[in-house]
C-alpha cells in the first residue's frame, strides 16, 4: 500500500520500467552496431533494425499507457517527448546500419578507427542516458550526468571534424560511393546529437515540476 502511494501505481511503474527497457535496447543496438563495425560483419548489423522494431513496440506501449492516465497531465507530454527523442536515436542508428550494409568493406582503416571511436562513445552515451534517467528516482544530481553526456558529444564533434577533413582528401570512384560514405558518417555522428537532446529534455523534465 505504502509502496503504491509513494512510488506510483501499476501504470506508472509499467511506464517507468518500459522507458528503462527502451533505453537498454538502445544500448544493445549501439553495442551491436559497434561490434559490427569492429568485426566488419554486415550480418551482425541486422540486429540493429531488429532492436529498432522492438524499441518501436515499447514506445507505442509507453505512449498508450500514458494516454490511459499514467502520471499528472503536466508531465505526460514531457515523458512522451523524451521517449520520442530516444526513438529518434534508434531511427538514426538504423539509418547508419543500412548505410554500413551498402558500404561493406570499403571503409579505410583510418576512417574505420574514428568510426569505431564514435560508435564506442555513442554506446557510452546511451549507458549514461540510462543512469541519468534513473536519477529521477534517486537524490543523485542529474546535472553531472547531463554534463557527462555533453562532454561525450563534444568528443564526437571533434572526431567528426577530423573525419570530414580526412574524407575531403579521399578520392571517390563514383557518386554513390561518396554519397553512401558521407551519409554513413553523418548518421553515425547524429546519434550523439539526438542522445544529447534526450538528456537535455530529461533535465527540462526534471525541473518542470519544481
Amino acid at each position, binding site marked *: 500500500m505504502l509502496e503504491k*502511494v*509513494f*512510488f*506510483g501505481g501499476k501504470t*506508472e511503474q509499467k511506464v*517507468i520500467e518500459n522507458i528503462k527497457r527502451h533505453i537498454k535496447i538502445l544500448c544493445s543496438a549501439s553495442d551491436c552496431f559497434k561490434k559490427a563495425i569492429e568485426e566488419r560483419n554486415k550480418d551482425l548489423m541486422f540486429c540493429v533494425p531488429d532492436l529498432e522494431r522492438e524499441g518501436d513496440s515499447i514506445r507505442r506501449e509507453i505512449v498508450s499507457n500514458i494516454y490511459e*492516465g499514467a*502520471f*499528472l*497531465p*503536466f*508531465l505526460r507530454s514531457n515523458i512522451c517527448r523524451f521517449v520520442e527523442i530516444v526513438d529518434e536515436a534508434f531511427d538514426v542508428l538504423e539509418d547508419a546500419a543500412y548505410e554500413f550494409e551498402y558500404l561493406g568493406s570499403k571503409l579505410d582503416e583510418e576512417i574505420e578507427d574514428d568510426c569505431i571511436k564514435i560508435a564506442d562513445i555513442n554506446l557510452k552515451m546511451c549507458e549514461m542516458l540510462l543512469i541519468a534517467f534513473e*536519477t*529521477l*528516482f*534517486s*537524490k543523485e544530481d542529474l546535472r553531472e550526468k547531463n554534463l557527462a553526456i555533453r562532454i561525450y558529444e563534444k568528443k564526437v564533434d571533434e572526431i567528426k571534424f577530423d573525419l570530414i577533413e580526412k574524407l575531403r582528401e579521399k578520392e571517390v570512384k563514383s557518386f554513390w560511393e561518396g554519397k553512401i560514405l558521407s551519409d554513413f558518417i553523418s548518421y553515425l555522428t547524429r546519434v550523439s546529437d539526438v542522445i544529447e537532446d534526450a538528456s537535455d529534455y530529461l533535465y527540462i*523534465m*526534471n525541473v*518542470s*515540476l*519544481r
Partner: protein
Amino acid sequence: MAELVPLAACILIAFGIGSNDTSNALGICIGCGIIRLRKALFPFGCLVLIGIIISGQKVIKTVGNDLLEVNLSILSISLSVSALLIILSNWKRLPPSTNQVVIGSLAGSGVASGVDVNFLSLSKIVFSWIVSPLTAFFFSLILYKMMEKTLSKLPLFRIERILRILLFISGMLIAYNIGANELATILGPVIYSGLIDRIQASFLGTFFVFLGAVLLSHRVIETVGKGITTLDPYSGFAAQFGAGLCVLFFTLLGMPISTTYCIIGGISGVGMSKGMKTVRIELIKKIIANWVLAPSIAFLICFAIMRALR
C-alpha cells in the same frame, strides 16, 4: 405553507453550490486524472456533511443569530432573492459568491424591515471578505516557498506521486470548507428561525449539494479540468491548499467567506512569487468589481422589495 418558501430557496442555493462550487474542490483532481468524478463524489459529499456538522456551528451562529434577528418575511425574501440572483448570475456565466449574496440579501431585507441589524457583526463579515483573499495570498505564498525548500529537493517521480496525494487532500479540504462555511451560511438563518433543526438541515443541505454535484457539476469540472491540465500542478496545489487553510481559519472564527475569492488570492500569491508581471491586474480589477457588486445588488434588491411590501 409560507414556511416552505425559505426552505425551497435554501434547497435551490444548496443545489447551486453542488453544481458550481464542486469544481473548486474537485476540478484539479479530476483534471489531473487523480480520481474519476464518480469515485470523487462520495468522499466529496461525506466531507461536506462532516464539515457542516463539525465546524459549521460558528458560521451558522454568525449568520443566523449575530447578524440580525430573522423572521419569516426576511427569510423568504432574502433567500428567494439570493437563489434567483445566483441562478441568474450562473446563467450569465458570472458566478457570484454565495456567501456574499446571502449576507447582502439578509442585511438589505433586515434594514428595510426595521429589525435590529448588528452592524458590528456586519462590518466584521465585510472586513473578513477584504482580509480573507489577502490571507490566502500570504498562506499560498508561504506554502509555495516552503514547498520550494522541501518538496523540490526530492526526485522528480517522488514529487509527482506526493503532489497527487497532496492535490487530493487539498480538494477534500475545500469540500470540508463547502460544508463548514458555504452551506453553513445559507442554513444559518433557517436553523435559527426554528424552521428546521441543525442536524436535519445539515443532512438536507448536504443531500442537495450532493445532488447538484451529481447532476450538474460535470460540465463545470470538465471546463476547469481542461484549463488546469495546462497549469503547473505544483503552483495549483499551493494556491488551492493555501486558500483551503485560509477558509478553514476564517470558518473557525465564524466568518462566512468566499472560497472562490480565496483561491484567486492564493493564485495571485503563487503568481507573485514568480514576479509581479505574472499577476493579471486587469483581471483582478474585474474580480474586485464583481466582489463589490454582488452583495450590493443583493442588498439593494432586498431592501427595495421589503420596503415595497411594508
